């Protein structure tokens, strides 16, 4: 009795100590965030889209630089001012074996308003007036007014089969019953905050993915994610923290992959007639709002040493930014040079504006939204201190920051913004256009910035279908807003992936997505 117990105990220990079996055709990824639901029409969250892309295809796809490429649609073109025609891919199968047709796209567009949640997908169908099925593989979308950015919006339009329920029953999707798409992977299992398990779909229309089985494991804690990679529990991870990035450089068994992200930390100075939090000199509120003066905004800009921000504060994981989008995006202005750092000129401008001894100002930022937001915030406060300002920097949790920012309670803020669609209308339309509920512009314009010249050029852009002409107009709009210092961009953040050197080869994406079907085994 005792002997047999001992023997089984020893056996048990031996098995416990044995490393779990590793299969070459499986890929286990440790990710900071996962989906909230398996219903692709529930939420616009980036981590949601990234995960569900494996199961469902979008009508239009984007490459690793966020430029458009064919997805379920092979081509698209405007046939008049308010109609886009999409030619769809033939021979595409759903996971249940049924054929993909234009009806499925029409159904998906119409399903979105019925089922979307607090992060509304209607955002991507807001220009759609009606959808017309011409034949099985031709679809016409009639838009409300002119909608040049429709194909960009459709990069997030996930297609489900037209047999799917019109109701938002996330439980059906989460259990896998309704989780049927045309994507490269089939759904196996998922639970909130847990593993998303996927299996290769053999009838996929595109290139066959390298991995038979993929497990996307959600590990929000940075240290835990790094430990999981180091202990071999996962093959690769995303969002490597800056401190570990340096350590990984010296580790022969690991490989790091680095890419510019679309996220830029922008300073937003309120230019309203009365600033929400008073700006003071010797404790006395000043007359008017100093930030309304372009010279003051320029002085703030000139006092920022972006090289220090990148190399010291962010430990090298960033790049100086000179506008609200990374280079190469549709509407990126080539005219704007790199931002200068010149503290003397900044001081002179401040004196010229009537504040030779500076002033005291509140400066509020997020501290948990993107890597480095809190440290950049504090560094900026110190840089402005050299200019002679007294800056009360406060880094807050996003949960507190965003509602208060929406109520426009802050005089000057800094937060990250990413140009998710890869083009200027998304960013400049929301951030620097005059607030206009009717046109749907300026929703995130919380500074009160309004420049009729900018609005005119930008509006013309939104009413121009010709891509080249539109690009020119957006470039001009970008230039105007940036010269005005409507917002002051500081740094572009970079994203780091790390992987086991012998297992995985990654092509980093600027949208920070980790797509298992684009990841190759190491040679």
């Amino acid at each position, binding site marked *: 009795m005792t002997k047999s117990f001992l023997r089984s105990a020893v056996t*048990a220990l031996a098995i*416990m*100590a044995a*490393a*779990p079996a590793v299969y070459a055709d499986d890929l286990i990824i440790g990710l900071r965030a996962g989906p*909230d*639901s398996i219903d692709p029409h*529930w*939420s*616009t*969250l980036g981590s949601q889209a990234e995960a569900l892309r494996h199961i469902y295809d979008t009508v239009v796809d984007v490459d690793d630089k966020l430029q458009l490429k064919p997805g379920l649609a092979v081509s698209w073109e405007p046939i008049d001012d308010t109609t886009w025609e999409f030619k769809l891919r033939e021979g595409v199968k759903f996971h249940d074996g049924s054929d993909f047709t234009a009806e499925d796209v029409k159904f998906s567009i119409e399903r979105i308003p019925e089922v979307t*949640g*607090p*992060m*509304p997908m*209607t*955002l991507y169908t*807001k220009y759609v007036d009606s959808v017309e099925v011409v034949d099985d593989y031709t679809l016409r979308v009639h838009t409300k007014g002119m909608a040049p950015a429709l194909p960009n919006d459709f990069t997030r339009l996930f297609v489900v089969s037209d047999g799917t329920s019109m109701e*938002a029953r*996330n*439980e059906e999707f989460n259990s896998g019953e309704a989780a049927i798409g045309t994507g490269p992977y089939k759904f196996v299992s998922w*639970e*909130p*905050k*847990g593993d998303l398990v996927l299996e290769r779909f053999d009838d996929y229309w595109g290139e066959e993915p390298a991995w038979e089985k993929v497990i996307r*494991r959600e*590990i*929000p*804690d940075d*240290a*835990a*994610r790094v*430990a*999981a990679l*180091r*202990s*071999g*529990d996962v093959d690769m991870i995303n969002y490597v923290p800056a401190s570990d990035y340096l350590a990984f450089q010296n580790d022969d068994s690991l490989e790091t992959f680095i890419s510019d992200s679309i996220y830029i930390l922008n300073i937003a100075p309120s230019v309203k007639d009365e600033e929400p939090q008073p700006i003071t000199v010797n404790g006395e509120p000043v007359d008017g709002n100093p930030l309304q003066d372009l010279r003051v905004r320029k002085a703030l800009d000139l006092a920022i040493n972006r090289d220090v921000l990148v190399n010291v504060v962010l430990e090298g994981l960033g790049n100086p930014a000179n506008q609200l989008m990374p280079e190469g995006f549709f509407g990126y202005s080539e005219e704007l040079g790199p931002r200068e750092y010149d503290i003397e000129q900044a001081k002179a401008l401040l004196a010229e504006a009537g504040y030779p001894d500076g002033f005291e100002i509140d400066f509020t930022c997020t501290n*948990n939204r993107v890597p480095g937001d809190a440290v950049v915030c504090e560094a900026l406060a110190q840089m402005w201190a050299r200019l002679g300002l007294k800056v009360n920097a406060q880094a807050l*949790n*996003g*949960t*507190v920051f*965003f*509602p*208060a*920012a*929406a*109520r426009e309670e802050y005089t000057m803020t800094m937060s990250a*913004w*990413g140009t*998710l*669609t890869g083009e200027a209308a*998304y960013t400049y339309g*929301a951030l620097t256009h005059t*607030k206009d*509920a009717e046109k*749907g512009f300026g*929703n*995130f314009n919380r500074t009160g910035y309004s420049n009729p010249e900018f609005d005119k050029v930008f509006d013309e852009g939104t009413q121009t279908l010709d891509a080249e002409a539109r690009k020119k107009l957006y470039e001009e709009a970008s230039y105007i807003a940036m010269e005005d210092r409507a917002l002051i961009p500081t740094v572009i953040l970079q994203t780091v992936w790390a992987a086991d050197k012998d297992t995985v080869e990654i092509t980093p994406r600027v949208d920070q997505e980790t797509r298992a079907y684009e990841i190759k085994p190491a040679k």
Partner: protein
Amino acid sequence: MLGFLVQRLLQAVVVIFAMSIIVFLGVYAIGNPIDVMIDPGATQAIRQKLIEQYGLDQPLWQQYLTFLTNVVHGDLGTSMVYNVSVIKLVFSRLPATVELVFVAVMIATLIGIPAGIYAGYRPNSIPAKAIMALSVLGFSVPTFWIGMLLVMAFAVNLGWLPSGGRGDVGSLFSLQTSLVTLDGWRHVIMPAFNLSLFMMGLLIRLTRAGMVEAMQTDYVKFARAQGLPDRQIVFRHVLRNISIPIVTVFGLELGSTLAFAVVTESVFNWPGVGKLIIDSILQLDRPVMVTYLILVVILFVLINLVVDVIYAQLDPRVRLKGGK
């Protein structure tokens, strides 16, 4: 006894009421959950529609009344983030946390009390001093830090145990638990040990103090004079007499171990309810916050109830009705 139970349950209801109001007020003071969740590309019209859809445009008291009415009808709401029933969501995560806490408490008790007895029985021996030194570490060094050290040692460097996660889950009497599979135990042992340290340290010190004191009392001296073996004195008499403070602390600590589980869960990526609640707070997912807090209140009330009952069993002088 029955009156006592009814009184306790009534108390619980009052506390739950107060909790729900506090959570409602808190979220209301921070602001609109829509502003935290909404996508940057959304227009003013979309935002407005959402606020109305979720009833966030109504005054606070009305939102609260709607919530209460739903609760009376047995509906604790739907998560704003996951769009699934909150009860289902929380209960899908709760077993993992309960199982972790259960193993942790077991470890703390099975190691802590014997170690404490030994340290109290031979207070001047070297092992006793070592035990005391370690017990100080147990509750003075932060949990997350020890957790990371454990991961570095056993998962990264030695590769004996997995760095996180819950492993294979089997079922036991229709309960989903990883305690019935070997892989599950490999996963649970390290986080549970980490979580148990604080409670273990406390139990060691408490047991030792009680032991040292009890060993010098007259009844021990008489027992010794009678020629009873030490083993019998310690386990039959002394232990019984020092167990009341231990049970009290055990009960209290059970609650805070559950609360501390949040930290351990994130270090070891344990898929328990702690991670869920942190995320819900960050996204202001109000239904989940309220439900979780209500559950915690119920749990605390239950734990205290059990502690009181055990009291009465241990010491007949404590009377449940009048004695308190």
